[in-house]
């Protein structure tokens, strides 16, 4: 676990030292304000007079579809391009340590970004009677959805040396799994269900299974580099 933590810390440090990522993070954190207060549509809180975070949670899957690949595109592409992966794999690390370290490092940043949007529910609750069930469900669903998207995006990024390629392939892969026609495998529909406050243990297991499946595949890709 110590090695996973070391890699995770390095990953967090790379992201927090990147001006581009900090700017993207800021946009992500301010997005609820744009969707709830400046949105000209019927979900605008001032126009509808309805106090809920529905507008934010409805758009969150699309937001994560772009934000998560932007956050994860550097993780493997830069290591592959610079040759640092070869050096990392010459340390007494396993592919599993590396994959889990990168996942938890990026996930911690995602959790931080989602936590930074927490003042908005409190702000909305000042405007009227806010039902906290869907809000808490929404945040739980957001964590699970973000983790699943991250596992998919990291897996896609492990194949390439170029960050733009990693970004584009991850967005396409996420679009496929979000808009998948088979309801049982659709990340988006399950999230909408959790975000309404309907927490089903099968949904939680589904997201955990998606994360584990793509992390396992990712571990296979990294291990295959030692061939």
């Amino acid at each position, binding site marked *: 676990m*110590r*090695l996973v933590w*070391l890699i995770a810390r*390095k990953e967090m*440090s*790379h992201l927090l*030292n*990147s001006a581009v990522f900090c700017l993207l993070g800021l946009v992500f954190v301010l997005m609820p304000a744009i969707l709830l207060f400046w949105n000209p549509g019927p979900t605008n809180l001032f126009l509808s007079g309805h106090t809920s975070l529905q507008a934010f949670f409805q758009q969150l899957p699309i937001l994560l579809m772009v934000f998560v690949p932007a956050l994860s595109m550097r993780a493997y592409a830069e290591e592959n391009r*610079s*040759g*640092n992966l*070869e*050096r990392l*794999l*010459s*340390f*007494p*690390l*396993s592919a599993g340590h590396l994959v889990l370290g990168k996942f938890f490092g990026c996930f911690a940043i995602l959790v931080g970004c989602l936590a930074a949007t927490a003042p908005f529910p409190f702000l909305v609750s000042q405007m009227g009677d806010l039902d906290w069930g869907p809000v808490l469900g929404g945040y739980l669903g957001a964590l699970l959805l973000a983790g699943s998207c991250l596992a998919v995006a990291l897996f896609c990024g492990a194949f390439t040396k170029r960050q733009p390629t990693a970004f584009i392939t991850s967005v396409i892969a996420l679009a496929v799994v979000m808009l998948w026609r088979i309801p049982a495998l659709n990340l988006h529909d399950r999230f909408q269900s959790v975000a309404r406050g309907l927490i089903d243990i099968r949904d939680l297991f589904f997201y955990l299974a998606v994360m584990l499946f793509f992390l396992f595949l990712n571990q296979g890709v990294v291990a295959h*580099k*030692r*061939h």
Partner: protein
Amino acid sequence: MIELSHVSKRFLNGSRLTENGRESYAVKDVSFRLEKGEIAAFLGPNGAGKTTTKRLITGYLAPDQGEIRVMGMCPRRDGRAVRRRLGYLPEHNPLYDDLTVFETLRFAARVQGLSGPGLKSAIRRMVDLCDLGPHLKRSVAVLSKGFRQRVGLAVAMIHDPDLLILDEPTTGLDPNQIHYIQQVIKNLGGHRTVLLSTHILHQVPDMCSRVLVLCEGSLVFDDRPQALLARGCTVARIGVAQEPDAVLGRLESLGHRATCLTQDPERSGANPFVPFTVEGNWTEETLADLAESLREHGWRVGECVLTPPTIESIFAGLTAGDGTACASSG
């Protein structure tokens, strides 16, 4: 310490095929053994298979055939145990540009399992050894190539490994930096085994106790540097006051391979002699005989000098494909 036994590795992408369409090898049937304390130079032209062999030893790649033992262990099966006792400086020395020198060393030390006082003393030791003191708080991105190389070397050595594998550690450095890195590597001998590749050949006899030469994936030389130098041939340099084509023709008829050394063989009144090098393992006596046979033609012979072999000329001979350092005998 390291033992390779009939190790072969095919090209990874399968793109390199021989003329008859068969698979060709990055490394083919390579066997050698390095003992503790040896500093071995791993030489070969670009694409000879040096980096592949080093990756096989570190366990980054698996051999298609043969067996590798590193400190008695298999680098694939006992990968983590081998890598705990191995330091590796890859070609191009990749480092994280957004970390400072101190953060880079601390990260490497922690990944190697060091903590507390052990970690601090390891960093201090590396800072002293590689003279990184004034640069500890600087970002790796702003370091000169020489200092980046020192940081890379410190990262490879921070856990005091028994085996150090260095891939072209002096490439692109200025002469002072080369000298510094050379001294650091020399001081490592005796305590640990070092396998280093370099294209700066004149460093080798002074720095290494063993030389391995790889050519087209095969090991063509494995011995002490003195043995390598002994394989070299003394080349003769002679000046003849005659048309170059006539001299070259005469030398060829005597069974010697010669080269005219001047681009403009127009002879001036001040220096009528055209310089030639004649390949072969010459001595004072054989060179005098050659000069005499040219004088018999009525030609004036000027300087007759023996040029000792250089490691570069021996390397060129070894890797030319005929497997010998001497193209012809004198």
